[in-house]
């Protein structure tokens, strides 16, 4: 079961709580400011081209703790 998250750069305030709970450590802080002046969280996958090998499982832990509801989670459906 593989997943993917989308972080809304403009809603994120860079608190970093999602980073602390991600079991796969796929979330970091972006090097680029958003228009509010925060460094937002940034999701990255090593194998983003191959959907079979991505680390994200779509567990939703990041989205559960996100104070700004800036994360949307997508998950592959079971066959």
């Amino acid at each position, binding site marked *: 079961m593989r997943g993917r998250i989308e972080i809304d750069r403009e809603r994120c305030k860079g608190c*970093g709580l999602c980073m602390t709970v991600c079991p796969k450590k796929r979330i970091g802080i972006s090097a680029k400011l958003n228009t509010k002046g925060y460094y937002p969280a940034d999701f990255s996958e090593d194998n983003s081209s191959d959907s079979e090998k991505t680390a994200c499982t779509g567990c939703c832990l990041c989205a559960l*703790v996100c*104070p700004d509801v800036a994360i949307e989670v*997508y998950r592959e459906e079971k066959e």
Partner: protein
Amino acid sequence: MKKVFSRPKSLKDVPFHYCPGCGHSVIHRLVCEVIDELGIQDKTIGVPPAGCAVLAYNYFDVDMCEAPHGRAAAVATGIKRMLPDRVVFTYQGDGDIAAIGTAETIHAANRGERVTCIFVNNAVYGMTGGQMAPTTIPGQVTTTSPGGRIPLRDGNPLDLSAMLALAAGSVFIERTTVINPKGVNRTKKAIKKAFQTQIEDKGFSLVEVLSPCPTNWKMSPAESVNWVEETMSKIFPIQVIKDVA
């Protein structure tokens, strides 16, 4: 891929004004998720407080009626008695419910008003700049207790939830946190149970949520989460305080 997590329907699609790492917005989201799950968006009336959450009516897509500082329980009582088929909740901080609003809240609980209080406890007066609140824990540094709160001089932290549990009219009181995914899930369950208690017309329900305030605690969001877990939850233990529903 299927979307498995997104913004609840009754939470308006606007950015929050809260500081980075604040617990308020998580609790807003949980209340909205419960409202969606119970399907009560069109018959819910919220009462926001004075405090950081004073603008909560900008975020909840339900009817809201602002209350004067501390009087949310009294305003909610009035609404519920005139419109008994509605679901009425108050959303209050510790400076609102546990300081200026103590009398209103205790009497609403004692009368067993069918309202639900969401009590956000962050151990300081957040909006006014981090002054000592009744819930400030011993030793905690705030702008009005720069050397730390000393119980003999400043008094001890007030455990309002335990006081309300003594009232005969209260039926469900639980204390939770929003500092980790487990706490978030537990808080949502507690809020859902509190709303159901009200819908079933059983009596007064309250959920106290220990919420981080990184700005006024002068900590990073990650440090404030640890502080709730290691220090604050020792004074305010995470537990079901009363459940006779």
